[in-house]
């Protein structure tokens, strides 16, 4: 019974992580309409930022360094959009071209990280007090922070879209790019802001994951795959769906791995994704708008 509870807790932890990344991915997809394969690497960049500066200045406040990492992630992603993606969007390149471009960026970024920090798996030692126990399952303080952060981020983004003027414009841009231009929304600026926020969110997720288990250059890809799966299962463009999708993926991963060997983790996620695509291609909720 203990194991069962532990699996549930682990699933929720995983879900929290993937949900954060999926939500950011959703934001990006909604304003640019393509799958950015480089998105996962931003998480890695945030994590390595913290790794580097915390090792350099071990007495510095970890919270401040984390904030720096979040900002760095947002800024870096904003730059990538400005320098690369925008050029292609201006030429109205197809989705497939954008996918290949993001593939290029992902490859380069990942390789650069591996050159500077080696391919080794890096961890960070945090001396927190002992772990918590919930109903017989163990959960570390960082994992608790992860879950609450995820909820917090979700809540913030909900407020952003509902109450800020930028958020509303971003929603308009997502729903109808053509009309948005016509009514005078500065789509370039909105896109840039969205990318910054999305970059910050995913960097935060990467930092938390780093503190939880550690990081290596290829971690970004794993983050990406699971979050894209959550995003698609939840229905592209559907924020709440991404949350549900993340929960599904989290549970499938942890329970699945318990019954089958650990090496099948990624494959399992994809098998579930492919099954969803075959039987429920619009996502778990019937989405009102079907984007290309």
């Amino acid at each position, binding site marked *: 019974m203990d194991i069962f509870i532990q699996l549930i807790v682990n699933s929720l932890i995983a879900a929290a992580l993937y949900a954060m990344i999926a939500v950011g991915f959703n934001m990006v997809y909604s304003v640019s309409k393509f799958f950015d394969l480089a998105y996962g690497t931003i998480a890695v960049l945030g994590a390595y930022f913290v790794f580097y500066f915390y090792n350099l200045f071990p007495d510095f406040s970890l919270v401040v360094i984390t904030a720096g990492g979040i900002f760095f992630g947002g800024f870096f992603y904003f730059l990538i959009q400005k320098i690369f993606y925008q050029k292609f969007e201006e030429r109205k*390149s197809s*989705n497939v071209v954008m996918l*290949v471009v993001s*593939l290029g*960026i992902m490859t380069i970024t990942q*390789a650069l990280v591996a050159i500077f920090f080696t391919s080794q798996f890096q961890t960070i030692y945090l001396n927190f007090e002992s772990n918590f126990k919930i109903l017989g399952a163990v959960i570390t303080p960082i994992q608790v922070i992860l879950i609450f952060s995820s909820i917090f981020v979700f809540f913030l983004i909900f407020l952003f879209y509902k109450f800020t003027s930028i958020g509303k414009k971003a929603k308009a841009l997502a729903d109808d790019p053509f009309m948005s231009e016509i009514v005078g929304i500065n789509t370039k600026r909105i896109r840039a802001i969205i990318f910054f926020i999305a970059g910050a969110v995913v960097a935060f997720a990467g930092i938390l994951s780093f503190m939880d288990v550690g990081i290596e250059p290829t971690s970004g890809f794993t983050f990406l795959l699971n979050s894209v799966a959550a995003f698609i299962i939840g229905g592209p463009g559907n924020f709440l769906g991404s949350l549900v999708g993340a929960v599904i993926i989290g549970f499938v991963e942890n329970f699945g791995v318990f019954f089958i060997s650990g090496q099948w983790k990624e494959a399992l996620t994809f098998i579930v994704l492919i099954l969803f695509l075959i039987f429920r291609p619009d996502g778990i909720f019937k989405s009102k708008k079907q984007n290309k």
Partner: protein
Amino acid sequence: MEYLIHILILISIFSILGITLDLVVGYTGQLAINQSVFYGIGAYSTAILATTFEINFFWTIIFGILLSATVSFLVGIILNRFSGDIYALVSFGFAIIMHAVFLNWQTLTNGPLGISGIGRPEIFGFVFSENLFFLFLSIFFLFVVYFLCKILVNSSFGRALKVVREDELVSQIFGYKPVNYKLVIFIISSSLASISGALFASYVSFIDPSSFILLESIFILTIIIVGGISNIRGAILGAIILIFLPEAIRFIDLPADIAAQSRQIIYGILLLVMMYFRPKGFLGKFRI
């Protein structure tokens, strides 16, 4: 000289992979990122049959082709339901799933330990142990694949693919069934790709799952993006460029793993440059 022969063998093997991938990407217009699946099936078929059952190389190729055809039939049916981004993503998924199979079906594939001792091809008592002769064999297969694909592409089947690629509805109204065409070209592409795997396994005599990861599929995609989409010779050009270019780094003395990463950076830059300046590829005829 030995070194040059080695490079040429690699170029032949990857040219086959590029040509066969181009059959799908160039002629159906879909971004298939799963060539590593059939590359791997071909390699493991040869590896297992040659070492455990001592079956002749040439028979293992036939087996690999049949196995790839069967697997690609199933994969193709699923892929046919999708297009664009999702197609690319699902084909990704199959690459990852297949890699997990290679890694975990240990009784068959020996998992991460891999299979060693794969012998060189033998026919009528002659063994291709000299690399030079192996090169001839590789080029022979390259020519076979090249000519088969040429016939295919220049036939009514090839024209039908172009029609289906451009306007599925019109193709249907004038009597074509797009689903069948897309499936058949996918099966042909996958079956021929497995030949590369067989050659690779026999050449390096040891294989393990790490040669058949998703990254490999991306590499093969880069070959045709650079060389030219929807042009058979383009695939060969792409293979030449992509295999020669990183060799140029060898002249700069870099430690081993930085060299590997630098190669990745070059591929990434190539992708960006090609997409920006020439999305068709150097010799390509179809813009993605």
